[in-house]
């Protein structure tokens, strides 16, 4: 069931709210950028994600196909969310689960996680090694 969560980068300059169902799979990936910051994404859409503050503090980073927008706070460097513009389900907002407020450690530990093999461009397959993701 969808529930509305608030979240932020570390310094608080970037704040958002998202309607998420944390009983549904969240994602970790071994691609070159997700590997470096263990991006842990809960999936929202443009309709269920609202940036509340900090649009001017966001730096956008794109690479490779340049289709995905990777945003981070220019003050603290935290990636609170990113936007995938060309996914099988259309435009997706990946919300960093680590940035959500009001989620207990116990709840975090029970969120289902699906690991995908982005390193080998196999976005629907689990990588051979994933315990570190």
């Amino acid at each position, binding site marked *: 069931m969808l529930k509305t969560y608030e979240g932020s*980068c*570390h*310094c608080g300059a970037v704040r958002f709210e998202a309607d998420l169902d944390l009983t549904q799979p969240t994602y970790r990936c071994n691609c*070159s*950028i997700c*590997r*470096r*910051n*263990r*991006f*842990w994404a809960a999936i929202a859409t443009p309709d269920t994600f609202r940036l509340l503050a900090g649009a001017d503090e966001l*730096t956008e*980073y794109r*690479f490779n196909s340049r289709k995905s927008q*990777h945003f*981070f706070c*220019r*003050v*603290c*460097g*935290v*990636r*609170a969310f990113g936007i995938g513009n060309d996914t099988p389900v259309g435009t997706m907002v990946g919300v*960093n689960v*680590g*940035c959500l407020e009001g989620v207990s*450690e116990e709840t975090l530990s029970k969120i289902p996680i699906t690991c995908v093999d982005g390193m080998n461009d196999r976005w629907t397959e689990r990588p051979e*090694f*994933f*315990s*570190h993701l």
Partner: protein
Amino acid sequence: MKYRGSCHCGRAAFEVEGTIDGAMSCNCSLCSRKGALLWFVPRDQLTLLADEAALSTYTFNKHVIKHRFCPHCGIHPYGEGVDRKGNRMAAVNLRCLEGVELSAIPVQEFDGRAL
């Protein structure tokens, strides 16, 4: 052993020397957001191959640890500070190293959130 690492875009490239015998994963307010897997080495074993002034620095709470990140791609390759004995130390994000099999490294969980 000498390792090479970098942020994602490559602007913050570095070399670090040492033996990776373990890593620390922390759940504090910053680590839970940036997901680093930390390996502590004396700061002089880390050689930044870029101008330090080109990196962004974030500090919080006691402002004693300098969290460095790339202002272009936002990746955090390392932080630095001083240990209790006064030695300059670096906490290297192992996820930024090349040629390291991360799943084979023992990880110690640290309850930074409780501090």
